[in-house]
């Protein structure tokens, strides 16, 4: 049963892949930018020659004077944004995650984070579900390199609606924020009325045998896995964790205590992402068996998004197997 208080989509369509509504998560970025721009005239958007595919274009059309084209120069883009923030602007920089923050990490660390400037790094095309473009364009290390920087907040929204809320919320935070968006159409799980608060994780479906802690497109896969597990008599708690940093420690500790086993689920390298963040909380507070649904120390490759999710072990049935394994490790 879905948590009714969170106003998620109807269960009647959610668990049927052919019926569930799907939208690219990046669409939420464009819409969120417009909300942020409506609310604050100081919001400016910078893009490195990818405004259509990142969806920065949605903002560009409404606010052409507050859209800044940078060309293919991500390092310059990061530091330009730092300068714009220094004179009171609220810049969002947008490109593919592989290029920003992939190429401009040091500029983000020194001129944005250490310099404590109010810049938002919005990264499209994260994860292997980018598809045919292949490994050069599939960022699976970005959460790690962003959450390791002091002063940085990290969001990984689960669907287009949450992406819109996360984008608008980022504009209201005074300080650096990293937001990661997937390219492909992703099942819609939340509605306009679903809450999103910085630093909060949410129990989307309650359970007591294992906790599936997920972020991004894997939230839907975790919900599907819980449905399958229920048929096997296993009660799985599904947690959406859209803020990777600062992570919701209390909710994670509670889940480990009450469920006794955890599976972290993300479209990211197994090192340094959501799984690592969860493990850090558990190791310090309440060690519990944990399995990691993530890319296992390799690069992506070309293929259709669903083929790649399958190949890299990121689908619902992989989560089901991992959940059973985690439960089996309970003492």
């Amino acid at each position, binding site marked *: 049963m879905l948590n009714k208080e969170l106003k998620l989509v109807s269960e009647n369509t959610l668990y049927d892949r052919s019926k569930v509504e799907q939208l690219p998560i990046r669409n939420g970025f464009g819409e969120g930018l417009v909300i942020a721009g409506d609310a604050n005239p100081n919001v400016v958007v910078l893009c490195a020659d990818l405004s259509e595919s990142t969806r920065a274009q949605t903002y560009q059309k409404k606010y052409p004077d507050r859209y800044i084209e940078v060309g293919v120069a991500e390092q310059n883009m990061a530091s330009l944004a730092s300068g714009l923030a220094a*004179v009171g602007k609220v810049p969002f920089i947008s490109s593919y995650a592989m290029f920003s923050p992939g190429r401009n990490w040091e500029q983000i660390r020194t*001129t944005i984070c250490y*310099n404590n400037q109010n810049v938002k790094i919005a990264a499209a095309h994260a994860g292997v579900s980018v598809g045919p473009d292949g490994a050069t364009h599939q960022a699976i290390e970005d959460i790690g390199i962003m959450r390791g920087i002091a002063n940085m907040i990290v969001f990984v929204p689960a669907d287009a609606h949450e992406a819109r809320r996360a984008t608008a919320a980022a504009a209201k935070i005074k300080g650096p924020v990293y937001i990661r968006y997937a390219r492909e159409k992703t099942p819609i799980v939340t509605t306009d009325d679903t809450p999103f608060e910085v630093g909060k994780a949410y129990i989307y479906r309650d359970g007591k045998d294992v906790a599936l802690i997920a972020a991004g497109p894997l939230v839907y896969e975790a919900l599907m896995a819980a449905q399958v597990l229920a048929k096997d008599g296993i009660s799985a708690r599904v947690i959406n964790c859209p803020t990777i940093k600062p992570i919701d420690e209390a909710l994670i500790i509670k889940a480990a205590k009450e469920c006794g086993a955890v599976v972290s689920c993300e479209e990211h390298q197994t090192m340094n992402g959501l799984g690592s963040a969860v493990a850090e909380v558990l190791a310090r507070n309440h060690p519990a068996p944990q399995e990691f649904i993530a890319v296992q120390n390799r690069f992506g490759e070309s293929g259709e998004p669903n083929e790649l999710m399958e190949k890299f072990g990121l689908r619902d049935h992989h989560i089901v197997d991992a959940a059973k394994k985690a439960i089996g490790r309970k003492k």
Partner: protein
Amino acid sequence: MAYLNDEKIKQLTHQANEVRQSIIEMLVEAKSGHSAGPLGMADVFTTFYFHILKHDPHNPDWEERDRLILSNGHICPVQYATMAHAGYFPIEELKTLRKLGTRLQGHPHRTSLPGLETTSGPLGSGLSQAAGMAYGLRMDEKKNWVYCLMSDAEQQIGQIWEAAMWAGNNKLGKLIGIIDRNNIQINGFTENVMPVEPLKAKWEAFNWHVQEIDGHNFEEIVNAVEEAKAIFNRPSLIIAHTIPGKGVDYMEYRYEWHGSPPGSIEPKGAPPKAEQAKKALEQLRTLGGKITSEHQ
């Protein structure tokens, strides 16, 4: 800002010398840090903080202030020393350079010290920030000037040219870059390590107005900034030719002093380590033996 008269030049000369003495004293105390660049840029920094900049040391966040961005953060001893002499903080505090708990970090950190416009150290990103500031200020129809001080070896970094291209394209007339053309970098002379010439032609090709000056001549520094201000349809660059280590004879022109403080190395022509600091201060206080020091 006005053109210089003899009296003002005399004041700046005296002030720059005080700044150089402070640089030596703070480096000796810190036992690490860069010598040659800071000494070479003492005249430029003095001219900015004591004549060119619109600023208020007692109100460092003043909205109408000009912005001075130091891109090559490693020469921060000269910025700290000049700021202290200009009244931003007590001169005594210069002795805390690079020590635990100091506001004077080994490379400048904006949020540690009021009056610093940015954090820098990793080279090549200052011009982008200055361009972002100039662009943002223009969006709000503000009148502030934005200055960015860079090193010559920094011209080897790709990001400088990304920023140069972007600023040229956006015709940022309020942006003025200054390159410290002292010809040295850690591994040797720039033209041996990785030539940056022809520097003037490169910047002109990126749609900047470019001037070359003697970076130790106060009048040339001021006149070049005045000319740059008169060019309002594109950004301006001033290539300031300076002598690394200027004012301390055994350091002048020698790349070995790029990243070393007095007392740390003994390259050819240098006095014994134990005497280096004393010799440097003696020379500065007597203007290279031209006057008898009041301290003697």
